[in-house]
């Protein structure tokens, strides 16, 4: 005969995945995340500024080439376009070009010259002068190039920090947000599922065939699978959107961090699901659920805020300490991992602390659940539930 825990879990999965609210919330999550990832780029944020440079007169060609070459060093892109002398004014006022080089030594603009563009042009001009001087001094072009591109400076850090990959900040931000949403949302779903069974009294029928422990385990497993499925779907869709459109480049280093989020979700969800189930079993009506879950909600929220603090300063003492406190670690640790500010031993130790706390917590939560789940009516007090479960096989 099939294990009742599996049956209970399977019911949770099929009933929830079929539910319209699940489908809608998943789609909203996917769309929002993809939008957050893509919209800034679509609107041009974060792209290098682009300038069009009008080129008048043959003497300007060398200068224009030098500016184009120098522009990336200043974080801008410059495109040079030949321009007839007669069109200089109209091209500038129409905005076809941002600046014009006339005869290699004069710059014309409409109102003012962008400071970055000016610096880039100044540098290009200086380089041209130096190149010319070196040529005159008898150096061949290769030697000139060598002189002008010195070896990078040797940097020695006294306290080297693992560098954060580019884009890691944004990924860490989404990771924290998703983890908070899934852990809180599905933790609460466990509590409200428990109350649903209690308020409809269906729990009495079920517990005449399966034990309270099996019912609890099946419920948490089923809801966990649904939450994990949704998380995978959301993350995959967002990644697919990012990769297919090519708007954002994902650094190699981001991949392990992204997958580790799933692991941290499992730890965080299991920790809170056990507590939320115990809280839910204390009350008989959905309206009372808010009261018993408020303390838990506060703790999840504290974890969320600490994770944000860790995003700001991943190697602060606060972030380091929070990484080892089980209720908040599953949100703080992934933020630090994604930002690359964490040693491997810290990850292992933090996961171990979380697992150990879960191992301690589950029997306690299960005992409260067992003691309270069949007591309908007024809210069951914790010690009553504890004592009631002392007897009985459950």
């Amino acid at each position, binding site marked *: 005969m099939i294990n009742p825990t599996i049956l209970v879990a399977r019911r949770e999965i099929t009933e929830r995945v079929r539910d319209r609210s699940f489908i809608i919330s998943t789609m909203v999550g996917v769309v929002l995340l993809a939008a957050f990832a893509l919209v800034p780029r679509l609107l041009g944020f974060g792209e290098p500024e682009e300038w069009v440079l009008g080129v008048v007169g043959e003497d300007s060609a060398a200068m224009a080439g030098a500016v184009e070459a120098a522009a990336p060093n200043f974080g801008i892109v410059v495109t040079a376009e030949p321009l007839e002398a007669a069109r200089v004014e109209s091209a500038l006022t129409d905005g076809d070009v941002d600046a014009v080089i006339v005869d290699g030594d004069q710059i014309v603009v409409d109102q003012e010259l962008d400071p970055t563009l000016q610096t880039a042009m100044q540098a290009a001009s200086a380089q041209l002068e130096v190149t010319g001087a070196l040529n005159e001094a008898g150096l061949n072009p290769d030697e000139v190039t060598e002189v002008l591109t010195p070896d990078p400076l040797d940097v020695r850090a006294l306290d080297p920090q693992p560098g954060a990959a580019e884009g890691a900040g944004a990924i860490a931000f989404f990771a924290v947000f998703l983890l908070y949403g899934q852990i809180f949302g599905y933790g609460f779903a466990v509590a409200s599922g428990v109350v649903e069974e209690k308020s409809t009294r269906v729990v009495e029928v079920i517990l005449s065939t*399966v034990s309270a422990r099996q019912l609890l385990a099946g419920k948490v497993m089923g809801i966990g699978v649904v939450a994990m499925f949704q998380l995978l779907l959301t993350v995959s869709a967002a990644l697919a959107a990012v990769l297919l459109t090519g708007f954002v480049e994902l650094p190699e280093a981001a991949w392990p961090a992204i997958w580790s989020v799933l692991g941290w979700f499992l730890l965080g969800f299991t920790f809170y699901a056990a507590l939320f189930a115990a809280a839910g079993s204390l009350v008989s009506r959905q309206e009372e659920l808010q009261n018993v879950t408020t303390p838990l909600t506060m703790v999840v929220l504290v974890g969320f805020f600490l994770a944000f603090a860790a995003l700001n300063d991943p190697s602060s003492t606060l972030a380091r300490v929070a990484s080892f406190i089980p209720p908040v670690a599953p949100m703080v640790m992934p933020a630090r991992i994604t930002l690359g500010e964490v040693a491997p031993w810290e990850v292992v130790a933090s996961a171990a602390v979380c697992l150990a706390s879960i191992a301690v917590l589950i029997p306690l939560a299960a005992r409260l659940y067992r003691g309270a789940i069949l007591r309908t009516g007024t809210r069951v007090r914790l010690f009553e539930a504890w004592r009631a479960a002392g007897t009985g096989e459950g």
Partner: protein
Amino acid sequence: MLELRDITKSYGEIVAAAGVSFRLHPGEMLGFVGSNGAGKTTCMRIVLGLLEPDRGEVEWNGRPVDSNTRRRFGYMPEERGLYPKMRVANQVAYFGRLHGLGKEEASAAAGRLLERLGVEERADDRVEALSLGNQQRVQLATAMVHDPDAMILDEPFSGLDPVGVDVLTEVLRDRVEAGVPVVFSSHQLELVERICDSVVILHNGRVVAEGPVHEVRAERSDRTLRVEVDGALPGWEASIPGVQVVSRSNGSVLLRLGDGVDDQSVLAVARGAGRVTYFSSARPSLVDLFRSVVGSDRGTE
């Protein structure tokens, strides 16, 4: 055979069951009656393992009941319980699976039962969309989808219309004839008298009468008199010590005699009160019996 032995359970000061013992035989339909708070639900919950008794045991075919035996029972709790958002057929099949049926087996059994109970056209509706009467039929279906070895039903008839009562009676009779023991609690004593083979009357957590319905009624018949006296003043019988009025109708009075009360002394008083037109020992109905048992106890408390 299901046997309860000395089941005792109290909640703090309140004693819900004080040494309840009775047996439920194969192919027997047993009515479990008693006033509110008599301990019926407590006993049933103990049989299903939802409550631990303070003392006493429940045995099935001579062995203590465990979770494997219980999985073969069918149970309908007093407070009906179904998942409101789950669809009817899925729900019944789900309970079938919890009771150990295979996948196809469970949905086939669910389909058959829903048809038998007359709710097959609602199979794909959510439970919450059904009327209360139909929800109750679905509840019964969940209790018997696995073809249980024994059925324990808490107030299965409450809230049913007469057609529903007939359907349920027929379905239960069917199971009983197939050899399945059925015990159900009820306040509808006429119904219990009509359809049950035997009865257990519970009062204040104690079994006060038990056995086949006709025997229980006959047992009390020598202690019960129906007397009609022409021209007697109302309350003529009040002066006889140890005699209690069970019911009164159209000048006829049903009396229950206490221990050691001689029926001839009652006759003497009756003759003194007027012209005795009827004097006979009576077989009390279950209602009368229940009233006399419960009423007498109330008098001494």
